[in-house]
């Protein structure tokens, strides 16, 4: 029971070969495009690597780059094959090449689909990585004299200004962290001593935020300290004030940015996947029609092409049975040795 049989007269075969040649070149370009998309995404993720805790999200651009490179090779060979398909004498030399070729190309096409799914599914992973990374960034903001952390302040300031955000979840995260280093606190002042004593860990906490949280679109000069104290500033109500500092948290801003990027890339790669699948399907038809010609004298007769010689289940069993036999042989062997 053949899967999706189609008849191919000579002209149709020639047209198939020519169309496939064109399609394979387009798919090669699409593969190069996928590779560049992967590189671009990796660069963007690396730019903010300092506020990410782990690099698991890098699996998406890595997969895209691998798939892009592989599809260059797959489509190059597809093009060569259909160039030879027009000559019935030269096509049979591809016979031994076909089995491994199908294995490799099916694997990488599936990997492309996996990359698309991952780009949508890894949002949670990204969010948790950013949560931890930003928390650490805010905690180490004041440590500009500690090697390895001295640029955290600059990173966080730049991030907050570029993405127009403040803090991790929102600006109140700055109230729970000491972001002014002890080097710049006057411990002889009563106010500082009171604040440090007022909490268990001995940290200088207050309701202020760094200058990078300030919103340039605000009509009034930025209010950075005593944010929750309405009476400290003239004509100010912190519950209704929206434009003074950025309200959005940096985690939300970064997740939105990266998900937007990955969704667009995912949509592009999905169309590349469809193109690649059509190339493989056409190549399979071409291969089967040309193989039916083998040994025939008249190369212009009509032949049949199909996707699978047997049905889907039977083909799968055909490949899986040797593996099962191998495993069972092992089991039988161990039973023998036990007995």
């Amino acid at each position, binding site marked *: 029971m053949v899967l999706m049989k189609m008849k191919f007269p000579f002209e149709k075969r020639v047209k198939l070969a020519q169309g496939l040649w064109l399609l394979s070149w387009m798919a090669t370009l699409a593969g190069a495009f996928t590779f560049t998309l992967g590189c671009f995404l990796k660069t963007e993720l690396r730019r903010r690597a300092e506020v990410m805790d782990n690099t698991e999200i890098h699996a998406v651009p890595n997969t895209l780059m691998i798939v892009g490179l592989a599809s260059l090779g797959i489509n190059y060979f597809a093009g060569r094959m259909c160039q030879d398909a027009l000559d019935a004498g030269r096509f049979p030399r591809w016979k031994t090449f076909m089995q491994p070729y199908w294995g490799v190309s099916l694997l990488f096409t599936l990997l492309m689909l996996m990359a698309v799914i991952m780009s949508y599914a890894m949002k949670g992973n990204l969010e948790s990585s950013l949560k931890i990374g930003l928390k650490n960034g805010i905690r180490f903001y004041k440590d500009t004299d500690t090697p390895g952390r001295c640029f955290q302040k600059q990173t966080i300031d730049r991030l907050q200004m570029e993405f127009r955000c403040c803090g991790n979840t929102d600006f109140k995260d700055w109230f729970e962290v000491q972001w002014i280093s002890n080097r710049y606190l006057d411990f002889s002042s009563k106010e500082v001593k009171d604040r440090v004593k007022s909490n268990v860990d001995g940290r200088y906490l207050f309701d202020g935020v760094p200058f990078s949280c300030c919103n*340039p679109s605000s009509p009034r000069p930025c209010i950075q300290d005593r944010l929750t104290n309405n009476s400290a500033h003239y004509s100010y109500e912190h519950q209704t004030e929206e434009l003074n500092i950025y309200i959005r948290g940096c985690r939300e801003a970064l997740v939105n940015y990266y998900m937007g990027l990955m969704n667009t890339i995912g949509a592009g790669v999905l169309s590349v996947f469809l193109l690649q699948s059509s190339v493989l399907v056409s190549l399979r038809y071409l291969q089967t029609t040309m193989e039916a010609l083998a040994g025939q004298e008249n190369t212009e007769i009509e032949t049949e092409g199909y996707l699978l010689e047997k049905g889907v289940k039977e083909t799968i069993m055909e490949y899986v049975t040797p593996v099962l036999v191998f495993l069972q042989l092992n089991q039988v062997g161990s039973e023998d040795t036990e007995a």
Partner: protein
Amino acid sequence: MAVLKVKFTKTNRDKLAQVLWILNWVSVVTGVILFSLGLFLKVEINKRWELMAERDLHYVPNMLIATGLIACGINFLGGKICYDCADTTKFLRWKLLMLPYVICTFFFTFCILVGALMCYGMRGELEEALDLGLRDAMRYYKDTDTPGRCFLKRTVDLLQIQFQCCGNFGFRDWFQIQWISNRYLDMSRREVVARLRSNVEGKYLMDGVPFSCCNINSPRPCIQHQITNSSAHFNYEYQTEELNLWRKGCRQALLEYYTHIMQSIGFTVLIIWLFELSVLTGVRYLQTSLENVLRQGDPDSESDGWLLENSFVETARSNFNIIKSLGKCNQIDTANNGDPNINVPSTAYYGPDNLPSKQIPMAS
């Protein structure tokens, strides 16, 4: 005595025509580049129109845009002409047009040179425009409720953040203007009233700067207020503190930015000018050599090509005389009492001895 005479065989002429055809198409591309450079400069100037005072800066990008478009047209025509010049019969079509074309292109390349020089010369006006524009922008920083100025605060803040600069010449410019609006000043407080009374114009002046002046490379949280007061902040010395605020003035930062752009554009336009000049020289040689071929009659023979037929001085003199006589065609020749019909004996050349021929005896 021709200027820079070169001999051209038939194959040389054909090769020259082909090469010039390709070069003319390359020149069309450079014309497009010129156009886009002008457009880019125009967009860059328009982006910061709020920070520039009213000065006529748009003549430079407009000139570049116009020159680019004309270059495309002229070189397209030149390409067509050179393509036809490979064949002597087709050249006859363009014969009358070629000299005016060469003259027009010569004046046009002069315009490109003027465009390139204007790019370099624009700097002075730009500096003035930026100086006045930034001064006004800082003055109106607080007027976020005045229509027409409500986004100036945002513009100045974003400028200082992006270009890493503060104030006009430096951060002290902010000490001399009131950048906090009266709407946010508590007039009931003694300190505020004292500050307002302390100067003639009743402005609230303080030694503080907006948050956008803060330097992100500073190891300590930004000190924006009481900058000159070293005792107001712990472990702070105003004279030696360098990383707290941006030290560069925005006028210098913007000027450097625009000068860099204009120098690059000016340099590119100069290269394009040299290229156009070389193409023009090739076309001139092609024109003169083809005209000489036609004069000699044999299309396959060698011919001379030159830049000018006579020396530079003689050509200038003859052109000057042509222009003078153009002006005289309306004037009457006063030598023969104004009557052009009087028979003036001619000094014709009769024969080798220049003797008039024997008179034919009159039949009696």
